[in-house]
């Protein structure tokens, strides 16, 4: 496949692997967090751990948009579909996320909720146009990558006067989550987790640029390498991080120059600013309340804000007591450290957020890496 196979070339990968083996110093241990679920997925799917020396370890971060969506938010979406009779439009991988009362969007659909899978917010607008007598709600989730399309949908709805369309906004912000992890006691004070650097997001960074990470590099003295989602991108980024650590540097470097600039996509950023403002705090599944980490719809678009339109009140819902997702997302634990992993919590019956999407740390390990630690 053109423009893809080039980034999955096994021979090139072996070359980079040799360089990592040669340059990673035997007396050091390197722990790097890939923030994004896309990277987690690539690492698992292509078997990247097999290409790394034992003392270079990857920690899977919280950047899987489906995984960090808290139960209470899915409960709201289910409530809208089941109790308020709206047509709820959702991205595919959100369908299976476990919510309260043993429900998920998929199960709510089986119980009669009109829940439809879409590929883009544009599909939701079309459904609203085609069903003028029904309320149509877009369940808008994701990081900075999926936010601009939601903004475009809001503006489209305003322009067309689509009065039966609204958005349940659950968009979250990457930099706030990274700061939250770096500020966690395990990392900052207790020294339980050594985090020697970050692989920065691919798609998110095409929107926000590389500039927002400069703060982490300086403030927390951690190297950041922004990388594409292809496996060679990831390998190259790991090599660049090893080199920074060895040299005692902590800079933002950009491996993904074919798509990411320092300033990012200004037009998309402007759209987001026009439609959204910061929430004071927002609950993340696995991380808890994270200040200024999410977006809400601005007053100008209030009539398209499902939270206002349906007078929704957010009710947090706790995860299973034994679920270790929070610790896994902060790098304190690995999936196999969790007593639920592979027993009552599997991709077929996920209990915690990390088992939900194939981008989650637990699901990726279960699906692709289970042979490394068979029970």
């Amino acid at each position, binding site marked *: *496949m*053109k423009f*893809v196979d080039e980034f*999955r*070339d*096994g021979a090139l*990968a*072996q070359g980079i*692997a040799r360089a990592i083996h040669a340059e990673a110093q035997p007396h050091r241990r390197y722990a790097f967090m890939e923030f*994004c*679920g*896309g990277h987690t*997925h690539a690492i*698992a*799917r*292509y*078997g*990247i*751990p*097999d*290409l790394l020396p034992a003392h270079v370890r990857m920690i899977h971060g919280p950047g*899987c*948009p*489906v995984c960090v969506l808290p139960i209470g938010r899915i409960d709201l979406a289910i409530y809208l579909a089941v109790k308020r009779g709206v047509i709820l439009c959702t*991205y*595919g*991988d*959100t*369908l*299976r996320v476990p919510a309260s009362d043993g429900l998920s969007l*998929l199960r709510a659909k089986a119980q009669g909720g009109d829940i439809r*899978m879409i*590929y883009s917010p544009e599909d939701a607008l079309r459904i609203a146009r085609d069903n003028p007598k029904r309320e149509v709600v877009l369940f808008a*989730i*994701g*990081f900075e*990558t*999926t936010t601009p399309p939601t903004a475009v949908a809001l503006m489209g709805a305003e322009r067309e006067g689509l009065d039966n369309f609204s958005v349940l906004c659950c968009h979250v912000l990457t930099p706030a989550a990274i700061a939250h992890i770096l500020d966690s006691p395990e990392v900052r004070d207790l020294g339980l987790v050594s985090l020697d650097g970050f692989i920065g997001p691919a*798609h998110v960074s095409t929107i926000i640029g590389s500039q927002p990470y400069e703060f982490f590099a300086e403030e927390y003295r951690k190297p950041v390498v922004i990388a594409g989602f292809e*496996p*060679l991108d990831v390998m190259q980024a790991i090599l660049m991080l090893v080199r920074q650590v060895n040299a005692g540097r902590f800079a933002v470097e950009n491996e993904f120059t074919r798509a990411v600039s320092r300033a990012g996509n200004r037009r998309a950023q402007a759209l987001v600013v026009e439609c959204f403002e910061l929430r004071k705090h927002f609950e993340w599944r696995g991380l808890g309340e994270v200040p200024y980490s999410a977006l809400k719809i601005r007053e100008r678009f209030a009539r398209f804000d499902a939270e206002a339109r349906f007078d929704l009140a957010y009710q947090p819902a706790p995860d299973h007591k034994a679920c270790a997702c929070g610790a896994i997302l902060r790098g304190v634990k690995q999936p196999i450290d969790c007593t639920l992993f592979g027993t009552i919590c*599997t*991709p*077929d019956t996920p209990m915690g957020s990390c088992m939900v*999407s*194939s*981008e989650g740390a637990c699901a990726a390990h*279960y*699906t*692709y*890496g*289970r*042979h490394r630690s*068979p029970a």
Partner: protein
Amino acid sequence: MKTDYTRPLDLKHGHIDMNHGGGGRAMQQLIRELFAKHLGNDLLAQGNDGTVLPVQPGRLVMSTDSHVITPLFFPGGDIGALAVHGTVNDVAVMGATPLWLSAGFILEEGFPLADLERIVQSMAAAAHGAGVQIVTGDTQVVERGKADGVFITTTGVGVLLDGVNLSGAHARPGDAVLISGTIGDHGMAIMSQRENLQFAAPIVSDSAALNGLTAALIASGTELRLMRDPTRGGLAATLNEIAQQSRCGMTLMEAAIPIQPAVEGACELLGLDPLNIANEGKLIVVCAAASAEATLQTLRAHPLGRNAAQIGSITDDPHHFVQMQTRFGGRRMVDWLSGEPLPRIC
């Protein structure tokens, strides 16, 4: 007044109504003018509650499959051809010669007769191509909204010669794992239609009857352990089934698995793994390692096996894991899919 005259069915503009399932004259007419017209053969013409079939030497193999699909017509096939191919293939991969099919139709009130005729014609052509006869059938009509156009259940009966003994439990460490061609064609053809995804070159379903190919393998006399057609759940599900049944492991070579660039691209776009995507005309063969080359040659000599490849081998593994050496150089598990393949958002 003409005593024996019935106005023919309007096959151009007519629709199924509740009368067509009522057991009265309307149902008889539908059977006569549509089903029997296209599917007719000596056995079906017996016209009794059951069809009397001549007993064949050997053992009988029987399999059944229900077919529901949206859209009913897709590039490379339709529900009619699929209903024939699916069941023919389930019988054929047992090493048997499929001979007869039954066909049960659940029709939704309001379904256009023109579409039904197209589907039945397609079944007739598929049965003819596969050398099988549809020897008994049934039609039920349900109210509008209670079905999705048409559902078809087919049951197949075939004859298995003595000495042919294939089973999912027969794979042994060291055996070779082969596939007859590219993976994921059917599932992505359906998905691209369903979601209205436009690709430069349309992806065409691989829906096909495999009994010619399986017959050639049986005739070649190579040391076969088992054959399977990887339909729903794709290659990954079928290989995991084999690993469980045979209580063995498996190692695949990703680079050896044939896949069309368009299918790979569509999967990439939707965040799907082609190993999980359905096929309707592909064959997995497990054979003794010494027979691998001969089996591959037999497969490649057949039009449906031109792109055949050895994709891996059976291993001894108490965990029954299916593992894959990735093109990239690492190793990973190939697991069952949880539920349906769902696109990833990022």
